[in-house]
């Protein structure tokens, strides 16, 4: 199996190297064939790996290549392929393949076509390295590599001012997260003296009672410290409050990227990482509590912002933020399986929604403002129906994939007894209503109601080509079915085995499992539960406010002006960051430059000493009078001084 695992990683890497370095001499067709071929091969191999693991195959955990060995610590590239990894690689490769195909249509006229393919293959490679890693070093490599590709792709249209701003922002905000992440890894290296997952997990219980003095007088448990530092990394990568600010802006990148990187895969790396580290997080209730509360805040408040957005992609982006919050909530409640389950279903339906939104955008010649859409149902039936499936899955309509995963999370939080679980439960429950409201607001504004696009665009409206619609249909299938098929083994069947460890007192899924009697009964039960009725209320509100009485939102805007402004300003995070960190660092830099560099270093130290030495030289030069008796006198004085020095000594 080793060669299969190596092949999974190398196939997309080969694609990116060939198309990236030799792309100039290849035709467009050759480029996309090579990249798609690489990812398709990788998908086939990951399916082989998946069925091998599911079929009871051994968990693979071996180094592939030793980079260096220093001071007793081995730095290696190695793979850990258990069920968690197997699930992730299938999801990543499947979505990646769909996006690859879709790109042929979406980027058809773009001059950066070949560069784009090279990047997304590189992304696939990096993401696979991340999820297949068996040590922290490689995890960090993959973590940074996906961040790099994300940066490159957000700024793909580098002539656009806004794209450059957005990728810089993404880069800087992720730096904050990565700082914490790197400190966490450093702490692990310091306390465990190993970077290997297995070693660390084995030794972790021994360190449960060890404390460290972070600030003088404040003792912290080492495990809690490590978990929170790692979670700061996850907050950056998975866009949790307050490090979420980069994700909405990342929509500056081409839509396939928004689907692949900023919805389905990369942003879920944080979720994956926390689940992978479950043996550590289970040892620290504090850390779990932090994860839970941060996730719940993100889930609810980012959803609210989605209601006031006009850009179709931004609505989906805020929805992604909110759903990432749900996943974190699941993890924080120790329902890791539910978090990963939601990650998977979300990957399918959110990729579907993004690609459908992209289909709308190309049909309207890159118009993204929903105020200039409406009534598209008539023109784009395939896009309409697939988008409807995506939306229903997102709001958790019973039977569709999102229902199973989201309901499981909500129920798990309700069961949890971790501090903060009560608040989190309230927020995720209200979040259901908010989700339905912004989702169907977007849906109605785009596909129903009066046609607000300009007449010229309307003449050319038609359904997108097959390379666009086929991936939509292919993604719609798992968006509908995957939840129904996998809910039982994934959540309650102990499917993940040793990959995820849950302490007995935290095991909410086990408690929920006692009341679980199959997917069908869960659906029927769901029809009566509060989340369903909240979602329906959300849909009804959207219908009433945006189709029945379209003047209502304007009215609400005036009545609740303060609330509206808070939401439009996204709670002021961006303004705050811009004012404090952006302008502040510019001012600090300018201050250091003027005071530190120009005045102190250049003025006093460099030029000052130079001037000082120069003056000294001129003065000392005067001693050289040219008179013989002065010289002889100086010699005698020197003799006397030396003599008295020597005698005194």
């Amino acid at each position, binding site marked *: 199996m080793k060669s299969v695992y190596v092949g999974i990683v190398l196939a997309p890497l080969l694609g990116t190297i060939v198309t990236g370095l030799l792309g100039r001499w290849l035709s467009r067709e050759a480029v996309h064939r090579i990249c798609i071929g690489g990812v398709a091969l990788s998908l086939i191999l990951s399916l082989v790996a998946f069925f091998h693991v599911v079929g009871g195959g051994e968990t693979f955990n071996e180094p592939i290549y030793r980079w260096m060995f220093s001071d007793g610590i081995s730095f290696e590239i190695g793979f850990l392929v258990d069920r968690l990894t197997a699930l992730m690689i299938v999801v990543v490769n499947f979505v990646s393949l769909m996006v690859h195909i879709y790109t042929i249509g979406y980027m058809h006229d773009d001059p950066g076509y070949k560069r784009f393919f090279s990047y997304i293959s590189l992304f696939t490679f990096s993401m696979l390295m991340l999820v297949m890693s068996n040590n922290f070093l490689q995890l960090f490599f993959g973590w940074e590599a996906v961040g790099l590709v994300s940066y490159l792709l957000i700024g793909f249209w580098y002539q656009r001012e806004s794209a450059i701003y957005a990728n810089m922002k993404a880069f800087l905000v992720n730096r904050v997260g990565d700082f914490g992440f790197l400190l966490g890894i450093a702490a692990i290296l310091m306390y465990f003296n190993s970077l290997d997952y297995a070693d660390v997990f084995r030794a972790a219980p021994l360190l449960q009672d060890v404390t460290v003095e972070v600030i003088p007088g404040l003792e912290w448990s080492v495990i809690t410290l490590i978990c929170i530092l790692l979670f700061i990394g996850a907050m950056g990568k998975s866009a949790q409050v307050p490090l979420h600010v980069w994700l909405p802006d990342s929509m500056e990148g081409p839509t396939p990227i928004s689907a692949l990187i900023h919805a389905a895969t990369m942003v879920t790396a944080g979720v994956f990482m926390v689940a992978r580290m479950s043996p550590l997080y289970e040892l620290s209730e504090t850390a779990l509590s932090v994860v839970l509360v941060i996730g719940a805040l993100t889930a609810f408040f980012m959803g609210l912002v989605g209601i006031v957005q006009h850009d179709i992609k931004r609505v989906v982006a805020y929805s992604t933020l909110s759903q990432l919050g749900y996943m974190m909530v699941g993890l924080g409640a120790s329902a890791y399986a539910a978090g990963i389950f939601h990650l998977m279903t979300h990957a399918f339906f959110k990729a579907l929604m993004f690609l459908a939104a992209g289909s709308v955008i190309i049909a309207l010649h890159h118009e993204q403002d929903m105020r200039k859409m409406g009534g598209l149902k008539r023109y784009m039936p395939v896009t309409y129906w697939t988008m409807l499936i995506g939306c229903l899955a997102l709001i958790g309509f019973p039977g569709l994939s999102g229902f199973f995963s989201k309901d499981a999370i909500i129920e798990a939080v309700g069961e949890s007894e971790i501090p903060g679980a009560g608040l989190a439960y309230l927020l995720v429950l209200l979040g259901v209503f908010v989700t339905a409201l912004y989702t169907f607001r977007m849906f109605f504004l785009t596909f129903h109601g009066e046609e607000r696009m300009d007449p010229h665009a309307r003449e050319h409206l038609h359904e997108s080509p097959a390379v666009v619609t086929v991936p939509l249909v292919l993604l719609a299938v798992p968006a509908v079915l995957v939840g129904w098929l996998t809910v039982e083994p994934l959540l309650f069947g102990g499917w993940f085995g040793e990959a995820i460890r849950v302490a007995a007192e935290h095991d909410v899924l086990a408690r929920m499992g006692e009341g679980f009697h199959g997917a069908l009964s869960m659906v029927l039960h769901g029809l009566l539960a509060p989340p369903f009725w909240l979602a329906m209320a959300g849909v009804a509100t959207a219908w009433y406010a945006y189709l029945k009485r379209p003047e209502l939102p304007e009215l609400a805007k005036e009545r609740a002006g303060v609330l509206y402004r808070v939401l439009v300003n996204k709670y002021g995070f961006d303004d705050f960051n811009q004012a404090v960190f952006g302008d502040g660092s510019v001012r600090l830099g300018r201050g250091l430059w003027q005071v530190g560099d120009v005045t102190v270093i250049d003025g006093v130290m460099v030029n000052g000493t130079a001037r000082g030495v120069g003056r000294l030289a001129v003065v*000392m030069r005067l001693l050289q009078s040219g008179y013989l008796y*002065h*010289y002889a006198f*100086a*010699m005698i004085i020197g*003799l006397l001084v*030396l003599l008295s020095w*020597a005698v005194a*000594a």
Partner: protein
Amino acid sequence: MEAVASMAFQVPDMTPALPEIFVLTMACIILVVDVFLPERRRALTYLLSLATLAGAGILTLALHEAEPRVTFGGSFVADTMADVLKVFIYLVVATVFVYSRRYLAERGLFRGEFFTLGLFAVLGMMVMVSARSLLTLYLGLELLSLSLYAMVALQRDSARAAEAAMKYFVLGALASGILLYGMSVLYGVAGTLDLAELGAQLSGPAARDPALVYATVFVLVGLGFKLGAVPFHMWVPDIYHGSATAVTVFIGTAPKMAGFALLIRLLAEGMQGLHVHWGQLLIVLAVLSMAVGNVVAIAQRNLKRMLAYSAIAHAGYLLLGIVTGSAEGYAASMFYVIVYAIMSLGAFGMILLLSRQGFEADHLEDFKGLNERSPWLAFIMAVLMFSMAGIPPFLGFWAKFTVLQAVVRAELVWLAVVGVVFAIVGAYYYLRVVKLMYFDRPQGSAPLPAGGEARFLVSVNGLAVLLLGIYPTGLMALCAGSFAAGG
């Protein structure tokens, strides 16, 4: 005197001193030949002088043995250090002769005196280098000094040269007197002139005699003057500046190596037991020299004067190795002095090369825009300046590196730091020359002199600094080998 007369006279073994005897004989022959030469055949004197140096070189190499050979009743020694230094003295002086030829001819100084005085100076240096008693040491020193005084005065219708010669002579006499006084106290305490015996005596109980403190100070003042260490340095700028450049380059190169030998013979061989006294005092001289030399050089507008202050600063670095009192330090200093002689030879050689009748090329302005007029010479000069500033990979870097390393090994880290700080100060004025050559506009448009063999030799000189800088180990091993046996 009766004791000497009663001793049966033995003919000493002449072979270790054959190079000295050869140089003396040849110098006398050239003196006579030159008198009978018509003016237009003067080149014969020049060629004979070069042949003398070459012959001395061959003799020295042929007679070299690993074991030291002592003769003339213990007052003369030919050991590895002496042979290495002698060979470099021949090389340097021969190069000086080649560099100077055109310069001298253009100023009517291309006469036999320059070459015969030069050869007598070489003889003086050889005697100093091979001295094994206080008397021989002083004899060699005076032979060298008197030759140099006369050489400075060679340009007798130049008021500046006459003034310089006068200053040099008076101050030199004063310094010699002080040195001689110190030596006489040494003799008074130890009762011997033989350096080896003196060394043995001063390592024993006699070392506690308080008179030795006085002796040390007087000896050091004399040595400090000969090396041009602060505060006995004041003659250096005036003499460097006042002499004809051909004489300056002579004074500024080979005698430094002889001065180093003087230090080693006296301090390391004769007075090693007094290291506690002279070590400290030398530190003072070294620090003052590095400081004054490097700082005042910045204020100079004349390149010869600048190089004079640079010589003072380099004397400070040279002393750093001696200060340690260890074989490693001595070897480092020896490496330093040889490297310095090579670099300084190249720099003065460049002035000689660029000068022409009525134009000395010794002002910094004269080097402005040299790159535009001759990129090759500008490159060679840049190499020399970088090397003097101690920038890797040039030879000068290794010289500074080895002495500083020796100082650090001797646990005088602060002294190394002082050395480095002043090296940085010094880098300014060396690099200023590079800046003038490459970034300023040329002032005159007069064509550069053709140069011929001097141009070739300057190029070899500059490239040697570069190549030896890349492969410094051979020369370093040579210096280390000179002190390996002595421990």
